[in-house]
């Protein structure tokens, strides 16, 4: 399965997302922000980093990159899209997901091995987990506080669209401890923690993150 990983100016974890795709058994395809063509990939990852230096607002400029028109189109048609950290911010700015990410309530960047619970194990990116499963995935961000109007939060909860929630202490003030959410069709997922950094116990807190990438490969088979 071909998984495209977009590089924007300032993207940082694109290489790591590619490695995660490879570890999971997929083929990682680099996509350039300036190209409108998605090279026939079956899924897309918007990786972490500081696209456009986080100028204006995180993801606010990347959202208008030429590649994003195709990503939005294909996402609406059902292609799985995963937004990690800055990628999540871009998905919200592009209105593929509701809400917004704001500065951490503690005002500082936080990098830590973060405990999460999987709240939805039916999305294209989390089908390999169990609902309620506790996983540890690195979080590293300065603008990770998820906010949305109360009505939106209620809808997300009511429709089971919260994908992962912070367990233990809330590291950034995200409302309802929301660490990641999904679109109505369960194909677009955005989360602040970095599953691509939890694929090898040698370089991370464990392998809990690999499931995100293996899930989407499995979903391609069944799609």
């Amino acid at each position, binding site marked *: 399965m071909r998984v495209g990983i977009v590089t924007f100016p300032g993207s940082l974890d694109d290489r790591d997302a590619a490695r995660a795709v490879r570890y999971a058994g997929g083929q990682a395809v680099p996509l350039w922000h300036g190209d409108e063509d998605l090279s026939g990939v079956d899924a897309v990852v918007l990786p972490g980093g500081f696209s456009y230096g986080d100028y*204006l*607002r995180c993801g*606010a400029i990347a959202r*208008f990159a030429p590649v994003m028109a195709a990503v939005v189109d294909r996402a609406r048609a059902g292609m799985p899209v995963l937004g990690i950290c800055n990628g999540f911010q871009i998905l*919200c*700015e592009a209105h593929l997901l*509701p*809400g*917004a990410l*704001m*500065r951490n*309530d503690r*005002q500082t960047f936080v990098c830590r091995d973060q405990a999460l619970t999987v709240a939805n194990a039916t999305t294209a990116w989390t089908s390999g987990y169990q609902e309620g499963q506790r996983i540890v995935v690195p979080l590293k961000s300065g603008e990770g506080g998820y*906010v*949305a*109007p109360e009505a939106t939060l209620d809808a997300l909860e009511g429709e089971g669209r919260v994908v992962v929630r912070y367990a233990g202490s809330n590291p950034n*003030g995200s409302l309802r401890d929301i660490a990641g959410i999904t679109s109505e069709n369960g194909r677009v997922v955005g989360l602040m923690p970095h599953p691509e950094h939890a694929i090898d116990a040698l370089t991370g807190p464990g392998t809990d993150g690999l499931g995100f990438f293996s899930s989407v490969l499995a979903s391609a088979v069944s799609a």
Partner: protein
Amino acid sequence: MSVIVEVMPKPEILDPQGQAVLNALHRLGFTEVRGVRQGKRFELDVDADVDPEVLRRVSDAAATLLANPVIEEHVVHTGESVHAKETDRA
């Protein structure tokens, strides 16, 4: 003359930066300040005479790019650049 766009967090949005600034002001003795909200100001240098049409277009730009309507509000008006107020500029 520039077009000024001011972007502020919506009233219901928690503004921890504004809160941090308020705490700092109090520590410095400015105890009469009761609240602080922190936002952004954009100064647009426009290529034409500023008429209602231009202001409308800037407002569109503000809603699309300069502000995130999920969490921010904005106002658009004409005004002078902050720089123009310095008297020792040639």
